[in-house]
């Protein structure tokens, strides 16, 4: 794939890769996300934990451009950016893996990996001829590189198992990593069994080595602590704490998730 100008290029290299400032979003009376500030550093895995309805998915969708914030700013490399559509975020090198995976069951694995970015020949844009053989070749190479075992890239995604589907979604998100900087994952292992989920964790660790920054939502707190550098706790739309994954414990996390504050020890 051709080289795109990298947003890293001219921005100040000291500013965090991604900064959210004062992000708010309400649905009717529900304050899904309220005054949230987050920093994401380069090459960092940031875990996000919180109860159901805490606003984790909404926050991620705001970064991915599929939900628009009511207020707040987003900065990349210290520069304000405008993300109002999914196209915008893709252009900035942000990829999201949705909780529902957003796969096309009726299309084959290669088409799913390349959707929206198919290599074409001849006429421009929509009328260009798909280079199907190249898509299959490159998709197969990608799956192999990521150690993903799927019989054929010609299988429709609808016949794959839950774990395979999850990995197709991940493969799609990292397929164009020359342009990618940030990977957002919404509960990538929620619907998986133990072995499948271990495979996915392994895969996430692998791709991190490729220089990506990852934000990951998960309910499996031990898994998050194992995988992430820092863990952000959300409660009722608010960002209640950020913990260092190495120095915190599962109990501390759970207390924060439930109580919204560190376990009260001897209040005055």
């Amino acid at each position, binding site marked *: 794939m051709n080289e795109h100008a990298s947003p890293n290029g001219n921005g100040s290299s000291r500013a965090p890769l991604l900064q959210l400032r004062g992000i708010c979003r*309400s*649905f*009717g*009376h529900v304050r899904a996300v309220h005054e949230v500030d987050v920093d994401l550093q380069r090459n960092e895995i940031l875990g996000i934990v919180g109860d159901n309805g805490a606003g984790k*998915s909404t926050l991620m*969708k705001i970064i991915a451009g*599929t*939900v*628009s914030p009511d207020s707040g700013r987003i900065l990349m490399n210290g520069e304000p950016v405008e993300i109002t559509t999914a196209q915008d975020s893709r252009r900035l090198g942000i990829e999201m893996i*949705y*909780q*529902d995976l*957003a796969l096309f069951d009726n299309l084959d694995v290669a088409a799913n990996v390349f959707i929206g970015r198919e290599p074409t020949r001849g006429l421009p844009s929509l009328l260009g001829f798909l280079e199907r053989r190249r898509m299959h070749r490159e998709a197969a190479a990608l799956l192999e590189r990521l150690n993903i075992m799927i019989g054929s890239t010609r299988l429709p995604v609808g016949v794959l198992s839950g774990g395979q589907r999850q990995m197709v979604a991940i493969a799609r998100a990292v397929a164009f990593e020359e342009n990618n900087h940030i990977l957002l994952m919404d509960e990538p292992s929620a619907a998986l069994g133990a072995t499948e989920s271990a495979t996915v964790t392994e895969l996430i660790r692998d791709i991190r080595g490729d220089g990506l920054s990852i934000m990951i939502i998960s309910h499996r707190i031990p898994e998050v602590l194992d995988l992430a550098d820092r863990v952000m706790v959300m409660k009722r739309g608010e960002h209640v704490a950020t913990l260092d994954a190495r120095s915190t414990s599962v109990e501390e996390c759970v207390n924060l998730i439930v109580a919204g504050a560190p376990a009260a020890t001897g209040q005055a």
Partner: protein
Amino acid sequence: MTATATPPGAPLDSRAQAAARARRLLLGQHVLLLIALILLGTYFTSRLDFFLTSQNVLTILRFSAVTFIVATGFTLVLIGGGLDLSIGSGMAVVGVTAGKLFEAGVPLVLAFVLGVVVGVAIGFVNGFIVTRFRINPLIATLAMLFVLLGVAFIITDGRSTQLRDDGFRFARENVGGVPVPVFFLIAVAVLSVVLLHTTKAGRHLFAVGGNPDAARQAAMNVDRFRLGMYTVAGLYTGIAGVLLASDLGAIAPNSARNWELYVATAVFLGGASLTGGRGSVVGTFIGVVFVSALDNGLVQMAVRPQIVLIVVGAAMILAVAFDQRPKGGFR
């Protein structure tokens, strides 16, 4: 469409919620449609002196009767989460059956009753196809539209014939100055309101249409219920078909072609929805009167009937758009 992710751009912020509530209030009680009907009536009255005379109002009601009866059957099916596009052809088969039987010397009342029975049978077949063969009702009844149209033509050998018999043409009579079809309209309306809003079957109909899976979990036999629903709708088709044949005083296989558009417009105007679980007899009644008044007024203003087709098509689209969009609509 399988909606999975939260649809972007479908937020329900407080302003939109207030608007939605206002809309529900207006549409739910058909206030908006009534206002539109009044505006329409006012406009026509200002252009045509005789529009609001009792004579003309009775004419509108008379023409509304057959449409209303078949539209009510259509509404029941929509509420139950189905669809029946075969109504026009079904009415044609009913009408020509009754006419042919009468022509062949079958006593008048028996001919009409048998016609209605044919309507019920058609409804049963529709329901059977949809529930047993699991065929999407849209296509099942579209196919039936053509099968029945073919049957109506086969029965009549493709010809229309007049039936000059006052008994057969009872729908053209007046009783106490009121056209006979209007009595049918009132009877069907009352019975349908009772059926829909006071019986258990009526409540179940809304449940089955609104959320078939939940109904199944509540141990309802949804398929059997829907079979019954289509069969009852067939009864409405039967009554409407007989009335239409009597009003036309003819055996006419193509008498009810393209009725689907008018009926669907009236019913959607009346607040029923393609997605099931919503609709009412009163709404459908106002919708039918609206479409009939539109037709009546435009024709009397010597507007070409083709323009009515355009207006009706546009009205249907707008009715559905207005009704569906606040809830997110088609995605």
